[in-house]
């Protein structure tokens, strides 16, 4: 495949914007499902940055990192969604502001 001649910083800016969006969502939403989605977005943006760097240096490491991120995301979602079910059962809500049993 022929090369893509986009300035690297443009790709990184896209990744940064995606990351910021995810972060924003994380801070904004009180529903834990949306928070988990935000996390996915953030992980995805990090993956994008890695792949970009890999492509820039023509190294496979970027994609390797992507795969590791993928596994992290998969594990995280599996556990996270399990937690969602438990939270719904115990608190009868998905509002994370009310699931504050760790308060000191």
């Amino acid at each position, binding site marked *: 495949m022929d090369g893509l001649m986009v300035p690297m910083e443009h790709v990184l800016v896209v990744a940064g914007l995606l990351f910021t969006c995810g*972060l924003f969502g994380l*801070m904004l939403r*009180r529903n*834990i499902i949306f928070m988990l989605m935000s996390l996915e977005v953030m992980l995805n943006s990090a993956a994008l940055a890695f792949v970009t760097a890999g492509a820039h240096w023509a190294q496979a490491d970027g994609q390797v990192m992507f795969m590791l991120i993928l596994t992290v995301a998969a594990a995280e979602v599996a556990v996270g969604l399990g937690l969602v079910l438990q939270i719904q059962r115990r608190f009868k809500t998905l509002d*994370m*502001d009310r699931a*504050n049993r*760790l308060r*000191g």
Partner: protein
Amino acid sequence: MNSIVLIPLLPLLSAAVLILSTGKMPRTVASLMGAGSIGLSALCVALLASSFLADGEIRELTLWTWMSIGDFSPRIAFYIDGLTIVMMSVITGIGFLIHLYSIEFMWDDESLCRYFAYMNLFVAAMLLLVMADNLLLLYLGWEGVGLCSYLLVGFWYRDPDNGAAARKAFIVTRIGDTAMALGLFLLLTELGTLDIQPLMVAANTQWQTGDTLPVLATALLLGGAVGKSAQLPLHTWLPDAMAGPTPVSALIHAATMVTAGVYLIARTYGLFLLAPATLEAVAWIGLATLLIAAFAALAQNDIKRILAYSTISQIGYMFLALGVGAFASGIFHLVTHAFFKALLFLAAGAVIHCLHHEHNIFRMGGLRSRLPVVFASFVIGSAALAALPFTSGFYSKDAILLAAWSLQDIGPWLWAGGLLGALLTGIYSFRLVFIVFFGEARTEPDRQPGWKMAGPLILLCVLSIVGGWIALPLAGVFPAAESHPVNHSVEWISIGVPLLGLLLAYLMFLGGQISVDKLLSAPMARRLVDFWFSGWRFDQLYDLLWVKPYKAIAHWWRNEPVDALYNGIVAASQWGHRRLLILQNGELRWYATIMVLGLVLLLAVMLRNAP
């Protein structure tokens, strides 16, 4: 030589056996053991004394080396010279008589076994004190007798007052003992040894007469002597110590332990000779004590307290003798005092015993015909105490007064003071006799003293009379006193003054020619007598100066003030904890926001530091 070891060992072993029997021993066995061991010990002393008198050799015996650290190696060793022989004879001889007396006196007491255990332990400790060849072993005996005194004063422990008296006795003497310990440290540091004879040699070679160090060292030793011998300013414990059984008072608080201070000064006289300032202080302390105690004795109405104050006063005479350099006279008075004061205490004990434990002399009276043996003892004892001519007390006290008179400069003053004391002694001792044994009977005796009580009394009577003619084997111990030609009028005065005291006592308390009530009618006089009665208010003074502040501080600090420091740390961290707790609100979004904030700040720092 083995008999020397037996002398302290017999009482010690019998004490151990009596203690370990934990009161299960039959009375007869216990009393036999208690008195018998002292008797055997006295026998050994008698043998030793006779052989000593025959050859005059100083006997030394080392049992084992106590400890050895570098150059410091005190031994458990005995040094027996004339002075030791005299002291040992007094301790075991009078001790045996008092033990014999105790069998009857204490027969009804449930703790007879404990009593003899303590008494024998005391005799053992006292023997160690006088036989010790070094000051450390002497200190062991010194503290040992203090402990036994504590135990015996508080013997009837169920009454808290007795406990208080016992504690007072121990703690007040402990103050003196601590000074003495400091003195030992000083001697050890400066002279490198605590063995008494080498110590005096070393002191003579290293120190000049009048140096600061000998003055300091002897002053500290004097502290110990003052405490143990109930001299000013540490005399307040002795009147209270009368809470113990009367034979205890006779043995410990009259004949032996309280004279340990005199013995200590006499034993280390070589040091005191290097410190004339201390010696003069000894004389003045003795004089002040003998006067103050004599005045206090005049105002008491408890038979034992009178005798206690008179003991303080008589030891004052001994100190006066030591202070003026008449060591042998001091020891002579110690011996005769042991005789007649033991006699007086035992006689007083007999009165108390026969009068249902009555102590107040104004509730006695007329006992002359009812308790004739006791009366005779009391009269002889009082005569000796007042130093009436041809009693033992006369010879010893006369020697002291003459020695005081012969001293340069301050001598006449000391003599005059001593003479005033002798007058007072005559008054208070016969006041006691007249009130208790003459006049009308106020309490009837319910029994007569048995032979175990009467026997020692009679023997002591004899000793109180003839004691003055005993020549003590002190020739080689002390430097020979210079004999001064003494003015005969001085001698006549010192013979006459006690007789004057007797006369005054007769006029006041028997004949009634001088009305005591009239004397006391003046408010000034009343207050003065109250003042004397309270022992010159020393107790109140010390209470105010030491006891109350100590208790107040202890009470104030009771709950550990240092903990305030640590509680402060705890409070600070708890305060911080509460402040920081608001961050820990359990909200996930809050934590995320804080993390982002951290990230923002971190990046900001990185950007700032970037080139």
